[in-house]
């Protein structure tokens, strides 16, 4: 049905259109962007290399058509002439379209290979895990901190130096125990029930907090930890957020029993009991706590026997102190000084940028 011969005008395999069957024939062929008129005459039929004579046609339709008609007028059929003209128009269209395609972006459709895609994605995940980005970043940051890149900015994350006390910690504990013996028996039962409700972790947290409270109360000189501040809090959010966080944390950590009534009288019993109880369990919990408290400095040795009201005051004072202390931490003036001095490395700024993006 279709002719494979390259010289065929219409492309159909018929007696009329066959370039081999006809001794007199003509075609129009597109060769490297140029349109040629190919003519076949019987005079050259036996000389295959010269058989097809070709002439370049102009891209102007009128001149081309004129030329075609004039050359083929006396030798070829009228139908053949028309076919050549039509083919010429078609080839022009093709040229136009190829030009357009070259100018436009060509979408190349590539097949998605399931196997390779699946394999690559899995390998990416594995590589991501293996890279341990978070850990490495953490280490890097710590290194920088330790080397002193940040100067005095982030001193809160430094490890606290333990100060030696004149009174031994154990003797202090004994003191507290004797005082609260009376209360223990009455409230031990209720506390035991409460204990069952609580998680051990909760107790541990509470114990920490209680101890922290103790610390804050007894040692004003020492720079306090942000006891109630979570680990995830940024250094930038120091001033205002701490107060809120303190309150919230207290509320969250304490039992479901009393939401806002933590500061009431009931607290005394609870806290005392907890403190007493915690004393016994302290040694057991130490290992757990140590993991949490790499950055935070907490002395487990001391206990607080005081009432809740006193604790409130303590907290307030602590907060004030903290505020003062915190204000010291992020001293914009200080930062400016450092910058001017040139002590602040550019790395910090970069890091800040990264945070924004995140």
């Amino acid at each position, binding site marked *: 049905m279709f002719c494979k011969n390259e010289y065929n005008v219409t492309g159909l395999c018929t007696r009329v259109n066959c370039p*081999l*069957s006809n*001794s007199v024939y003509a075609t129009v062929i597109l060769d490297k962007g140029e349109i040629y008129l190919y003519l076949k005459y*019987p005079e050259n*039929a*036996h*000389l*295959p*290399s010269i*058989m097809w004579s070709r002439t370049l046609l102009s891209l102007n339709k009128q001149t081309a058509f004129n030329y075609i008609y004039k050359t083929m007028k006396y030798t070829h059929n009228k139908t053949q002439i028309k076919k050549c003209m039509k083919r010429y128009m078609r080839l022009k269209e093709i040229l136009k379209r190829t030009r357009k395609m070259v100018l436009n972006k060509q979408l190349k459709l590539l097949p998605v290979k399931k196997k390779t895609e699946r394999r690559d994605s899995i390998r990416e995940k594995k590589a991501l895990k293996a890279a341990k980005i978070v850990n490495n970043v953490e280490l890097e940051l710590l290194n920088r901190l330790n080397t002193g890149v940040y100067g005095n900015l982030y001193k809160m994350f430094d490890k606290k130096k333990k100060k030696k006390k004149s009174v031994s910690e154990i003797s202090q504990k004994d003191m507290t125990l004797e005082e609260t013996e009376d209360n223990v028996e009455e409230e031990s039962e209720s506390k035991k029930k409460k204990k069952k409700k609580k998680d051990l972790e909760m107790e541990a947290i509470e114990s920490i907090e209680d101890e922290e409270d103790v610390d804050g109360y007894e040692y004003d000189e020492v720079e306090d930890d942000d006891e109630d501040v979570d680990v995830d809090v940024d250094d930038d959010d120091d001033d205002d957020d701490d107060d809120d966080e303190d309150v919230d944390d207290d509320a969250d950590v304490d039992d479901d029993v009393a939401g806002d009534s933590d500061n009431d009288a009931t607290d005394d019993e609870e806290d005392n009991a907890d403190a007493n109880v915690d004393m016994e369990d302290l040694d057991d919990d130490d290992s757990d706590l140590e993991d949490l408290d790499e950055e935070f400095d907490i002395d487990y040795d001391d206990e607080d026997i005081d009432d809740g009201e006193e604790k409130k005051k303590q907290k307030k004072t602590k907060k004030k102190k903290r505020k003062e202390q915190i204000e010291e931490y992020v001293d914009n003036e200080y930062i400016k000084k450092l910058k001017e001095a040139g002590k602040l490395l550019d790395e910090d700024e970069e890091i800040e940028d990264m945070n924004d993006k995140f």
Partner: protein
Amino acid sequence: MATVRPVANVYSLSEKKAVGKVEVPVVFQTPIRNDLVQYVFTNMSKNTRHPYAVKLGAGYETSAESWGTGRAVARIPRVPGGGTHRAGQAAFGNMCRGGGMFNPTKIWRRWGRKLNLKEKRYAVCSSIAASGVTSLVLARGHRISNIKEVPLVVSDSIESLKKTKEALKVLIHLGLKDEVERIINSKKIRAGKGKMRNRKFKIRKGPLIIYDKDSGIKKAFRNIPGVELCKITRLNLLKLAPGGSIGRLCIWSESAFKKLDVIYGKTFQRGITKHNYILPKSIVKNADIHRIMKSENVQSSLLPKKHPYKKRTQNRNALTNYAVRCRLNPAYKILRALNIQKIKNNIALKN
């Protein structure tokens, strides 16, 4: 009928020009009868067959006899005796195990076919003539777009080529590079049992080189894939029209080309000229009927063309149909306009 030419050029092997001229033999004017060629080919190709058959006594080399009725077994002949599995088993029939086949093949099958001498000669002449027509050679599939001439006649120095390298160079020089490449790329492993029967590869057929005297040409060209050689005195239809298809590409040496005339009787030479053979003539000299009809000689003697009367279609009423009315009475248009004007004037006057 193929276009008749008086002379063909002889081409040199090294230079790209014609070295001499040869008169084209009369053979190239024989009518090209591809139907005859096909018939002769199919029968001629049977003549080289080797007989095959089943062994003459196969399946019957036992003394089996039927047990007859009353033994509660089928009545097929059974092997007598005892002591083996074979005893009592069925024999002889095509359905039995170890029995003979139905209609065993015999060696006295009619393997070859007889053909009339004239038929065979006609076929050969036809195929030679077909090899002289460019279109037919192209149609058969040979890549000859770059050849100088058809039929391709080469100087006699081709017959004394010794090396295959030189032979290949000659082919490329003649413009047959595409042809050779086509053949080399066409080598494929055959599908089917032919693989086991020493016919592993299938490959296209290339040019046929026809020579007069072998002084090395055979050995030079025989290793090139697709190329076949043939002596002029022993032209073989199976090579000239492979598969029964006419128009194989033939390369003639000059002396071979000249000998064609001698073989087919234009000039007599004892021993070479075919005895009492006159080349076949066509019944119709010019078989192109369309060309004849359209030629001046015929057209000028014809009567003028009669146009059929226009068939009356639906009748149009001239009184109501304005167009038809106007056609019949050209003045009607003006008259109508005048009348309309008159009426308008009257109306105007009344008002």
